[in-house]
């Protein structure tokens, strides 16, 4: 065990994979000698050579198209998109190709050995184009799995699992926590399950759910609510697609209340999907309406970042509203 940050944890997962598999390849913009703009791929080129870790030209559709081909050939393709905000030129390759490779060929071909890593989210004064949380677009695409870790330990274990997963995975990394999230992380290999939510804290009166960088926000809100005597159950969804509705439903059947928090805009955010499923499966058990605490339906503004963020205070208020309904 060592105390390391999330970037180091991700770097370690990549390092382990490149060392274990001669056919694992890391590529993307500036990931070579520079080690990526956030340094997640530091020293990988030095260690494994230019054939295994390299800079690509500046073309996201090319990166993912290349990754699809490489994965189809059987290599482990680990593609980095520098910011999730810049994933959209690759939307066609992901939605029409990555996601449908297996299905359209009747399982003749697949790109299951592809993982797309990309930093997402706000809180770094990034304005419109270095802050977005686009997980819902991809969760709407059958065929890709979508994973978001909340801390350094989770990041390494989930990334190693994603790399073993027989389906393509988009791995959204909360860049606000890259250096801020420091914790005990095993030096060797370990995996955390995909498609499985984690109950971070048990409670009785209300279920509070988030993923990624918003976990520390809801935990802060829950701390405030508990001081008011409200018992909260806290869930980290971890995998957005396919999401673990069983764990969430079981929790809401117990608490009767649900507050969902995500950074992405409210409308058609993944919270809408969760709310729809939970009301269907828990209708007679619900004590109050499901509340979503999300970004507003605006682009992500620079100067009003604090106002925009679904922060602990907004979440705390929502928890109280949910319980006092």
């Amino acid at each position: 065990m060592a105390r390391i940050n999330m970037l180091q944890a991700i770097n370690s997962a990549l390092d382990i994979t490149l060392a274990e598999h001669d056919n694992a390849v890391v590529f993307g913009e500036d990931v070579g000698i520079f080690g990526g703009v956030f340094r997640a791929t530091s020293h990988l080129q030095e260690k494994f050579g230019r054939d295994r870790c390299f800079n690509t030209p500046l073309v996201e559709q090319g990166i993912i198209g290349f990754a699809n081909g490489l994965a189809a050939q059987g290599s482990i393709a680990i593609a980095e998109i520098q910011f999730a905000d810049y994933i959209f030129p690759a939307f066609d390759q992901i939605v029409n190709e990555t996601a449908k490779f297996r299905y359209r060929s009747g399982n003749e071909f697949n790109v299951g050995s592809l993982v797309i890593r990309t930093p997402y989210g706000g809180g770094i004064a990034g304005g419109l184009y270095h802050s977005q949380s686009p997980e819902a677009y991809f969760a709407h695409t059958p065929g890709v799995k979508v994973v978001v870790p909340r801390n350094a330990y989770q990041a390494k274990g989930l990334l190693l699992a994603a790399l073993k997963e027989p389906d393509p995975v988009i791995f959204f990394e909360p860049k606000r926590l890259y250096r801020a999230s420091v914790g005990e992380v095993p030096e060797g290999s370990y995996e955390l399950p995909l498609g499985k939510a984690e109950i971070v804290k048990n409670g009785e009166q209300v279920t509070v759910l988030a993923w990624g960088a918003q976990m520390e926000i809801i935990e802060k809100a829950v701390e405030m609510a508990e001081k008011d005597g409200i018992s909260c159950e806290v869930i980290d969804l971890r995998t957005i697609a396919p999401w673990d509705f069983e764990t969430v439903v079981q929790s809401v059947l117990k608490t009767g209340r649900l507050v969902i928090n995500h950074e992405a805009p409210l409308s058609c955010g993944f919270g809408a999907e969760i709310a729809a499923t939970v009301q269907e499966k828990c209708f007679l058990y619900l004590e109050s309406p499901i509340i979503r605490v999300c970004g507003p339906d605006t682009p992500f503004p620079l100067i009003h970042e604090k106002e925009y963020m679904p922060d602990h205070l907004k979440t705390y208020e929502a928890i109280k509203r949910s319980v006092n309904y």
Partner: protein
Amino acid sequence: MLNPNNVTVSVVNQPHFIENGALEIPMYQVLNEQGDVIEGAQVPDIDKETALRIFDTMQFVRVLDDRMIAAQRQGRISFYMQCLGEEAAITASAAALGDTDMIMSQYREHAALHYRGFKLEQFMNQMFSNEKDLGKGRQMPIHYGCKELYFATVSSPLATQIPQATGYAYGQKLAGKKECTLCYFGEGAASEGDFHAGLNMAAVHKVPCIFFCRNNGYAISTPASEQFAGDGIASRGLGYGIKTIRVDGSDALAVYHATQLARKTAVEDNAPVLIESCAYRLGGHSTSDDPSGYRSKDEEKQFGSSDPLVKFKHWLEQKGWLDAQDEQVKLEELRKEILAAVKVAEVIDKPVFEEMFTDVYAEMTPHLLEQMNELKAHIKKYPEAYPVTSGRIV
């Protein structure tokens, strides 16, 4: 035999592959490293007023960049990008345009905006995201835009402006106004699919657009050698059927002349032109990276010897258009003006919180109105948590 191409195809009876580099694309240069006119070089027709205005902008941007990088290090602004080494390329190309020609930039082209007349306080208002910023504080520093000056607002995603420039120029052609669009982008952005889309459509639809590629050798940390294997960006223009020139981007006179001629072609013949301007990026990509992590000091020294400001200044002095002592005084004044402008801009109020919800649509939708009201009530409840806006909520 049906010929699907646009040129006459000659037939050969032996297999004939054309090698990369078979076509030599020269670089147009007027000034040598010292700033003297190279013997036999074609010097553009440029008057004193224009030449000095170009120099003023180059100098302004050099000083502004220096001051604002310092301001970023002091934590006064969150981010900055300088154009060190590329001042001539950007300023002289903008100078060769008409006032109502559209400029669609990438992000490192604030010199063009200054040349057009964007004022010091306007630069500051944007960088400090205050309520006088035309962009209402929504974007990161240096994402300028100004309709009045025909300068489209910067968008961080790369190359998206290239096909947009093609479309804008098509509209200009349709309107019959004899105007053109100049689109700036880097050699890295030219790898994006949008580059292909934009240039191909411009050639097919014959639009008055100048594609100005700033080949500065680096896309963040990625050197041009890892960006493409062909002969720069210029070689691609020919593939699209676009008239193309390569210029020394550290040479204000060469850039000015090339852009003047390109504009003539664009406006008079309704044809796109590609200019590949080569000028090394002497600084980092932005304040977020340190070039020592990906390139050597030796390399920087080698390219740094060709300073566009030094060269152009020398030429102006040779012409007797510039007095070195006057310049020293002006430079000092400029530094003071910039420092003063920083102090003014940073204390101007930030935009009111309602501006977060405006301009998403032309008219605010009911759901946005509801979200705005909810947020207002929340900020009123926790004013200390939202210090930027809470003081001005009524």
